[in-house]
């Protein structure tokens, strides 16, 4: 059951049942894609999240109530949106200590050793539930309960780009150097955000992502191979 809420003078918030699960997110994605292809006059942008969709609009072109009715209609109307394939991405991660800056903290919190942490992280199929926090930062879920960690109470001032981190039941990849509170367990040689590429973002909401472990040597080989415009990362 959808709930509609006014979200300031220029946005409409659509909410689903508040839980993190593939079925709820599937419903968010379906409406998000319907709104995108419908090309409604006055709709400026959308922010899909775990169980909500924020729709920004220009009130000079469409009124809140008219937009709400359009969205409710689109939600009911069956469209063959389900055929859009989920992209499968395989992302190499080096979990060695030079990159796994917070591995000791994760080991202490989870009471697991590094090998087990890596095994669980690389044997889970994750979904990109949303992008946010930084341009191109993917929120990947759901992390198995065994790896659940708290964020740092005081954020690190600079987490290097491409660091792979854990927070709560989520894992994510820093697209650029930034301060942050996620616990870092490795780094990918893949550039996940390149503002100078035609398509700057490796990840899209809805992608399916798996990680695989690589050595420091493989990390360095992979880094040297990647040209700034290389963005075909499917393995």
């Amino acid at each position, binding site marked *: 059951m959808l709930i509609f809420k006014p979200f300031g003078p220029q946005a409409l918030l659509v909410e689903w049942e508040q839980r993190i699960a593939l079925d709820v997110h599937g419903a968010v994605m379906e409406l998000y894609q319907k709104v995108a292809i419908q090309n409604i006059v006055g709709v400026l942008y959308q922010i899909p999240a775990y169980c909500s969709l924020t729709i920004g609009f220009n009130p000079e072109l469409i009124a809140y109530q008219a937009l709400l009715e359009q969205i409710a209609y689109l939600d009911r109307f069956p469209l063959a949106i389900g055929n859009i394939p989920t992209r499968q991405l395989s992302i190499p991660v080096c979990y060695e200590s030079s990159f796994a800056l917070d591995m000791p903290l994760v080991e202490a919190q989870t009471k697991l050793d590094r090998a087990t942490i890596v095994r669980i992280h690389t044997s889970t199929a994750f979904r990109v539930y949303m*992008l946010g926090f930084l*341009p*191109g930062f993917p929120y990947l879920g759901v992390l198995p309960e065994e790896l659940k960690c708290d964020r740092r109470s005081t954020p690190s001032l600079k987490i290097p780009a491409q660091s792979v981190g854990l927070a709560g039941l989520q894992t994510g990849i820093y697209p650029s150097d930034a301060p942050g509170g996620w616990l870092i367990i490795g780094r990918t040689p893949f550039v996940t955000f390149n503002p100078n590429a035609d398509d700057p973002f490796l990840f899209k909401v809805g992608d399916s992502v798996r990680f695989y472990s690589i050595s420091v040597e493989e990390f360095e080989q992979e880094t040297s191979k990647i040209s700034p415009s290389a963005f075909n990362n499917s393995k």
Partner: protein
Amino acid sequence: MVRLHFIKPGLWTTVQDNGRIGYQNFGVPVGGVMDKKAAQQANQLVGNSLETPILEITMLGPQIIFQGDCQIAITGADLSPTLNKQPISNYETIHVSSNSVLAFGQLRQGCRTYLAVRGQWKIKPWLGSCSAMPFGDKTATPQSLIQKDSFIDVQTLPLIAPQRTALEDRPVFKKIVKIALMAGPEWNYLTLRQVAHLFSTTYKIHKDSNRMGYRLDPSLPNFEFSSPLISSGIVPGTVQVTNEGQLIILLLDAQTMGGYPRIGNITQDAINNLAQAKPGDSIRFEFKEDK
């Protein structure tokens, strides 16, 4: 062609336009001018389209040598502008001849000054906008974050007849800025006592306030929320409350996702007015109905 050569960058000077609309699904902030009204007035005064980039100057002005003749206009905060050491006025078209030096002095009132230059700005846009990306990968908009010895080239256009903004259309800077607040998605997280606090307290703008957001003091009393929220979208003007009860008004460079209760949203006019309030200044909320 006119070239602006920045001898001094000022405190925080950026190129802005109406922002980067349509990429929020990738986590890209909207960006764009903080005080839309003042920016539009400046572009109008030089006959530019409202989409033309503009300089947003914050509290401490840059020093600029103009290489080439052009027309400019300055609006928003009064930063005591001078052209070749002679005082000039805000809110009117000003002719600048080649090798002139534009400088700024004392901040008399407001917080953000806009400088429009007539013509086509030669700035490389990123995702359809010239607005500065101050974080993430700064190579996205290298020309839009002004530093010492930055240059901006503007393709000049035939001169227009000088204009002035009518006095009644110029801003009136108040000691206490009134901010129109609408109920937000998590409005019902507030107790009656907190609602009373919200509309009866004069809040001070905290020093950690910028284009991403303005933090307010004091905090809401006894604010606690039972279960953490699942992260959801943020739009400019969203008012959220942290676990400690601090109110934060998220602005143009705010991230697109948040996990704190979004108790309200301020209007576009309120964002314009707030953009002219600086750390240490005072604001008061006024309730605004949805419709």
